[in-house]
């Protein structure tokens, strides 16, 4: 069975069952926002939520992660983590699943990162499809992440009385096998799913004023745009945008010593390209001086560089960077201003070779 269904009243029974299988993380309310947390009380799980303050990244790429233990005398290194534990991420939005896929690409690329891969190996993702917008800051439709595109083990879709469960892996299948309250989806269920998806098309519209291909091209041409100076002038270099981004993975390393000063642990800690010393070398040369060039770098690491390298946009459309920005720098606004600047400039000769003579600068 590829699609299953579960009645809404049975969902908590299933969640009880899941929490017995592995450590369960799910979103819940925190003041006026939401966070992923280990589930202690199933009734606290929020199925309808705007993207959590931090993406679930904190569980598979922890903010502070042990790399290895060391001893100075005699020189020795040892594994820091004996065993990684099984865990389930529950009710993950499709934008955050896209974020996980981005990090997969990064950490699977040779030389592979064993810390990430080990955590990923133990991770089970149960997604939930959004049927309406979380808020005005999301640009998931433009990024193509408003609908499921793989990367999960199970996907929940609310069809009214029931949830449809899309089974996308062996791991996912195992979590519903033999449960009487989870049944194979019938024709009526599948019809409802179709209707839900149809209805979604009327709600979700591209938020950015141009196709991805157009955006890529625009980034290619607007490296020197005054828009970056404008963004840089407003930026306060706090690094919030990178901390909350599901596809930011830059880190720094740090050694912490025990009181003996002979033993310690090397950690890696999230770092941000927005920090002043990020690209500075010991001799004092700074290769990305200025908040404008650092902000530009962040945007290019979402819309240009990873596309060149992996044919993948590293913006998932979750909208977190905009939501968290103290200076109200909006991703949608920035990209749209670039697009506007692009359409304001004379068109380049088209691919067919029909050049508009006299218009080129």
């Amino acid at each position, binding site marked *: 069975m590829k699609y299953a269904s579960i009645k809404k009243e049975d969902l908590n029974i299933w969640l009880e069952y899941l929490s017995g299988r592995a450590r369960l993380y799910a979103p819940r309310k925190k003041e006026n926002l939401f966070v992923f947390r280990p589930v202690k009380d199933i009734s606290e799980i929020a199925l309808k939520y705007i993207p959590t303050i931090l993406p679930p990244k904190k569980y598979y790429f922890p903010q502070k992660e042990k*790399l*290895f233990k*060391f*001893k*100075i005398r005699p*020189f020795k*290194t040892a*594994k820091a983590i004996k065993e990684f534990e099984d865990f389930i991420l529950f009710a993950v939005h499709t934008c955050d699943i896209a974020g996980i896929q981005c990090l997969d690409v*990064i*950490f*699977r*690329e040779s*030389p*592979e*990162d*064993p*810390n990430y*891969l*080990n955590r990923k*190996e133990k991770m089970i993702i149960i997604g939930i499809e959004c049927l309406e917008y979380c808020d005005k800051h999301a640009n998931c439709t433009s990024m193509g992440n408003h609908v499921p595109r793989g990367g999960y083990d199970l996907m929940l879709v609310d069809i009214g009385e029931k949830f449809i469960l899309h089974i996308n892996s062996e791991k996912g299948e195992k979590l519903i096998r033999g449960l009487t309250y989870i049944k194979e989806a019938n024709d009526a269920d599948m019809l409802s799913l179709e209707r839900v998806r149809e209805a979604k098309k009327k709600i979700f519209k591209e938020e950015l004023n141009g196709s991805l291909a157009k955006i890529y091209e625009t980034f290619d041409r607007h*490296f*020197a745009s005054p828009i970056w100076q404008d963004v840089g002038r407003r930026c306060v270099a706090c690094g919030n945008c990178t901390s909350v981004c599901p596809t930011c*993975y*830059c*880190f*720094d*390393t*740090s*050694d912490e*010593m025990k009181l003996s*000063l002979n033993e*310690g642990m*090397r950690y*890696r800690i999230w*770092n941000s*390209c927005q920090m002043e010393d*990020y*690209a*500075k*070398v*010991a*001799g004092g*040369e700074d*290769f*990305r001086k200025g908040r404008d*060039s650092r902000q530009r*770098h962040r945007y*290019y*690491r979402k819309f*240009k*560089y*990873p596309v*060149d*390298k992996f044919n993948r946009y590293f913006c998932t459309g979750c909208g977190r960077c905009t939501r968290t920005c103290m200076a109200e720098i909006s991703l949608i606004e920035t990209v749209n201003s670039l697009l506007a600047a692009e359409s304001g400039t004379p068109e380049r000769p088209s691919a067919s070779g029909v050049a508009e003579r006299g218009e080129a600068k």
Partner: protein
Amino acid sequence: MIDREILLEKMKTSPYKPMRGKIIEARMLTDKEKFFRIQLEGKINLGHEPGQFVMVSIFGYTEAPISICSSPTDKGFFDLTVRNVGVFTNKLHTLNKGDIVGIRGPFGRGFPIDHMFGYDIVIVAGGLGIVPLRSLIRYITHNKNDFGNVWILVGCKTPAELLFKEETEEWMERSEIKINCTVDRADADWHGNVGLITTLIPGVDINPARTYAVVVGPPIMYRFVIAEILKKQIPEYQIIVSLERRMRCGLGKCGHCQIEGVYVCQSGPVFNYAQLKDFKGECHEKAV
């Protein structure tokens, strides 16, 4: 492509864990730079290419990327030369013969030795640039018959800052290598050239199509040197540069060394000028 078997195997070891490296020789070269000769456990060779770097660990002080300044033809050990400029290098300077450091690597791409066979070589070193270039120079001196004429141009601020003095004198004695030094400011004992390193370039007599120019130094130096070399008509892809960047992992992950979409630690630190000149910003590597 993802081969699960291979991935599972790779997940068992960590590329973040350093090897044990024993300092078997340590001495100050100038008042700021210290030379270290390091032996890995079992005297195994590092297996590097000239121009590559290692991540040196001092537990409690994390890591720093350091150029390897010996040639792979120097067996059983490798050399580093480090200027004391920060917390990490300050600590490294307190270490001496018998002390242990952590070593990861070698990382990155070195000088394109295989492409340089049969070419004349012009090596231009500014200040600390001689350190990574020493790996290339030693390699060439050990394999001289593979290469055509070799010029070495060395520049630094004052004679006191000149590194590898004795070795430079040895190189000077070799008839197949032409070496020329200059300083910005001379002292009483200095009898060589005085002036910027760019002034030495016009005097080098080469066939540009058959010449590789290898330039290493601070950005301000190689921008002008490259401009001078381009005047000599050496093709852009035969002008080789090695870049310095902040690095925390060496594995193309941590992000610090990135120039546009390129991780210097993996794709560099050695680049040819054709690769660099199209970078739009974020680096000072463009010729003036």
